[in-house]
């Protein structure tokens, strides 16, 4: 068997509980996004577009939708004879069953999978960020620096830096210190949770960490600090471009508004960096005679007879006559009946907002779960 230069491992097991209703029956990476995507599509498409053809996806929490969505990876051209995408849920072995106890433990338990491809490098990714990044450029940088590990970082505003893992670097990018959520940050380079490791080095550290009873089995908290202590060559790779962690309802909503903003840097229409997803057959959008559509993203299967502004509508959404949808995200097959008024809301799939009903007060973001029948004005669910 030929070996692979690099294997990507996507951590997709988290619940994302701060997304509330959106992750009750679904893992965070499989939460719908941008009208026709799911969050993990961005990471998978980045892999495909970066020429990485061997990807493991580590799943744990409510993986059914995620598993069904990914399938054998055809949507991302990852249904390959040798390599391609492999789903890696926790499993039972002769020594019993083990849930993944942390990000590092998830990789540790799948050492066998990675070793099968005998790669030089391993790329660790998380499945819940919205961004477009060419990992092959990061790999080039990693090789150039002769690094043992390279961590992608992004410049954040100084006042927000204390919310992140901050990398303090030499001038040439070498990391001499890592601080998790520092009170007084010394720099503004925040870790994006994207790592390239030399596989043999990482394996050694994973095995050692597994013996450390104190460890939380986490890359940021345990592995990276231990590597720094061990004198390894860790480098920061600066990413410039759009990057968003959609971990909260607010940031999820903001990321959608960014899609509507020409200046945000997140362009779904780039033919050289397509975002792929499992695609469905719906009829084209029908925009009726009295409809008004401004600054919105709409996908197929929608029937718009009312007004849609600054909003993102998924498959098969219906907006009735004189209904208004403003600054909102509407998921698939939800129906907004005649004269309803939606403002700053996120409405799950399969809902019905009855005629004339108002959802949201245009200030706080209102989140409505799936399959609700909304008969009365609603400001918070």
């Amino acid at each position, binding site marked *: 068997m030929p070996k692979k230069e690099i294997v990507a491992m996507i951590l997709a097991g988290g619940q994302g509980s701060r997304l509330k209703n959106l992750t009750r029956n679904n893992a965070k990476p499989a939460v719908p996004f941008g009208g*026709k995507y799911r969050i993990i599509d961005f990471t998978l498409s980045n892999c495909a577009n970066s020429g990485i053809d061997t990807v493991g996806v580590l799943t744990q929490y409510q993986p059914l939708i995620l598993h069904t969505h990914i399938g054998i990876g055809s949507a991302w051209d990852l249904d390959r004879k040798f390599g391609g995408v492999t789903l890696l849920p926790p499993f039972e072995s002769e020594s019993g069953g083990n849930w993944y106890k942390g990000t590092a433990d998830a990789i540790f338990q799948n050492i066998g999978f990675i070793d099968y491809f005998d790669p030089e490098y391993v790329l660790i990714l998380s499945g819940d960020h919205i961004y477009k990044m060419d990992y092959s450029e990061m790999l080039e940088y990693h090789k150039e620096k002769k690094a043992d590990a390279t961590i992608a970082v992004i410049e954040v505003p100084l006042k927000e830096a204390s919310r992140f893992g901050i990398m303090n670097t030499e001038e040439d990018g070498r990391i001499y210190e890592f601080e998790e959520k520092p009170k007084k940050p010394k720099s503004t380079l925040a870790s994006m949770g994207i790592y390239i490791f030399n596989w043999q080095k990482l394996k050694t550290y994973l095995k050692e960490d597994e013996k450390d009873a104190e460890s939380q089995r986490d890359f940021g908290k345990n592995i990276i600090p231990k590597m720094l202590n061990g004198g390894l060559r860790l480098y920061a790779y600066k990413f410039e471009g759009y990057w968003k962690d959609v971990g909260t309802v607010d940031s999820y909503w903001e990321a959608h508004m960014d899609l509507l903003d*020409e200046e945000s840097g997140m362009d779904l229409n780039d033919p050289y960096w397509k975002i792929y997803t499992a695609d469905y057959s719906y*009829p084209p959008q029908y925009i*009726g005679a009295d409809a008004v559509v401004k600054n*919105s*993203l709409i996908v197929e299967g929608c029937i718009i007879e009312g007004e849609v502004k600054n909003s993102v509508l998924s498959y098969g959404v219906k907006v009735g006559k004189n209904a208004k949808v403003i600054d909102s995200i509407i998921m698939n097959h939800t129906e907004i009946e005649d004269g309803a008024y939606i403002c700053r809301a996120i409405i799950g799939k399969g809902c019905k907002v009855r005629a004339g009903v108002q959802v949201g007060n245009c200030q706080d973001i209102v989140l409505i779960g799936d399959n609700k029948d909304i008969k009365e004005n609603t400001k918070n669910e």
Partner: protein
Amino acid sequence: MLKDYMGVISLSEDESNIRSLTVHRPIASIPIFARYRVIDFMLSNMKNAGITNVGIFVNSASRSLIDHIGTGKPWDMNRKNDGVFIFNRYLNAAVNNDIKLLKNNLEFLYRSKKNKVIMTSSYMICNIDFEEIAYEHEKSDADVTVVYKKVENGDNMFLNCDTLKIDENGRVLSVGRNLCLTDTANVSMEIYIMNKEFFIDCILRCIQDGGCDTIKQYIFANLKKFDVRAYEYKGYVGCINSVNSYYRVSMDILEYDVMNELLNSERRIYTKSNDSPPTKYLNGSEIVNSLIANGCIIKGTVKNSIISRGVVIEEGAEVINSIVFPKCVINKNVKLKNVILDKNVEIEMDKVLIGDKNYPVVIEKGSYVGI
């Protein structure tokens, strides 16, 4: 579910009045309704009736058709047994001759375990319930059931289509041709149901006797001998056999009820999907009564029009009563009215193109319309 039926789609269709859209493709793969190809309707009708084994017989160059059909995955026909197959031109056969093509590929019919055949063309667009028709056919004990539509606009549509003369029991007495002389007519939808054995027999006899180019000619020439019954279809039928009729059917779909019947039925219409992002409507856009696919960027005005995948309409541009095929670019302040743009057309800034409702302007695939 019609587990005993196989489908045959014969694309020996008359292209003489629709040349400008069939330079690069058969009628079956002309883009239509922003998202589909003409053949999607018949193929989806078959899928929705539970038919899993379909042969498509085509004489003209079929590159775009092969691309579109692929493995048949969109219609769930990517199967190990059964599935969808395209049978190509028989050497030296005329375009509208299907009999040699069928004869040359009899193996497809023999090999299938199904014992009944639904044969259709692609150019009659409808969302039809084949199960219902098959039920009536089997009840009637007829040799052949042919589906027709009683039309009221036969004087300006359905030109050259077969018309049926039917007796009080629904038996077909004779077959004529619509020359648009009267408004009402029983137009054949070119949907035939019969036993596979009968079908094969017709093919062989037609070759042996000579004189027929198509299997329907053979059946219609033997109306005395065969029991051919007519089944009346009451739904919408759009006939795509000229540029004019293509344009009119496209405008029909902008009526909510037609759209709803054809595209939003429980019987869904399937097609090949692309990786297009959602369509982006910008602040200056104005959209009225239009059908729009994914992947467009719209800053201008679109009225009573059909916009396919990946079209860009810049600020100040106006697209009215027009049909735009995939990946066209319509630059600033362009005005289009009663126009059909084939794929990959770009219209330069400030250009104005105005056609007539009955004679829409057609711009050929890949053209750059500049100064």
